[in-house]
């Protein structure tokens, strides 16, 4: 890891297109200002990790309990017709069976 010391008001340039400025340092809290081109995603690390964990948990879902739960849920009607380009399996297996 590259380690740099900066004071309030000083900046770091990354690749010439991203600028990180130390706005203030007070009582153990550093406030940073970040300038980056559109399309560069900037998140607090813990938020990214939380989404990562939710995505990973989602992949372990079993279909039958999920569908059963949905059947018991009051879903709102769609406000508008939405096209969802869906592929339907050709050789469908009974839901939730393997192999």
């Amino acid at each position, binding site marked *: 890891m590259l380690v740099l010391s900066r004071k309030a008001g000083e900046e770091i340039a990354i690749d010439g297109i991203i600028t990180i400025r130390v706005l203030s340092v007070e009582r153990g809290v550093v406030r940073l200002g970040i300038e980056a081109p559109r399309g560069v995603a900037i998140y607090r690390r813990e938020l990214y990790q939380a*989404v990562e964990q939710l995505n990973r948990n*989602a992949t372990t879902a079993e279909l039958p*309990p999920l569908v059963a739960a949905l059947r*018991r*849920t009051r879903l709102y009607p769609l406000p508008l017709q939405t096209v*969802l*380009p869906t592929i339907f399996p050709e*050789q469908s297996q009974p*839901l939730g069976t393997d192999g």
Partner: protein
Amino acid sequence: MPKQKQTLIIPRLGTVRLSRRDIFHFPAGLIGFEQLKDYILVGSPDMEPLRWLIAVEDPTVGLPVLLPWYVLPHYELPAAYTDVTTYVPLVVVTLAAEATQITVNLKAPIVLNIRSRQGQQLILPGDRYSATHPLMLSADVASL
């Protein structure tokens, strides 16, 4: 590129045949699956209105997703993504052991561009939307 159809065996869902046009390319992958770039949306009548977003490179990776408006009728993406003829948001459904613990991630929608066939997962700024929004109303659960 030849217009051949590719056969993909998806665990627990069945076999699909897909062509390149069916694929949504995610240049940055999904969060937590950054190495997997190509996905398809799979459904069947008996799982409506759920869909599964399946990674073409590794079909064992599949995420159940829903249109957010089923859960929150006024769900909104940032201004750059509000053209509904181009951008379709999907929210990831997470199931825990208890039915009451089904949540949808409204904070990090997967946005499909149905024109360019690209996709990305956003993390919305602010605290308007929860990453663990309960799917079931407690009243519905109580009436089981």
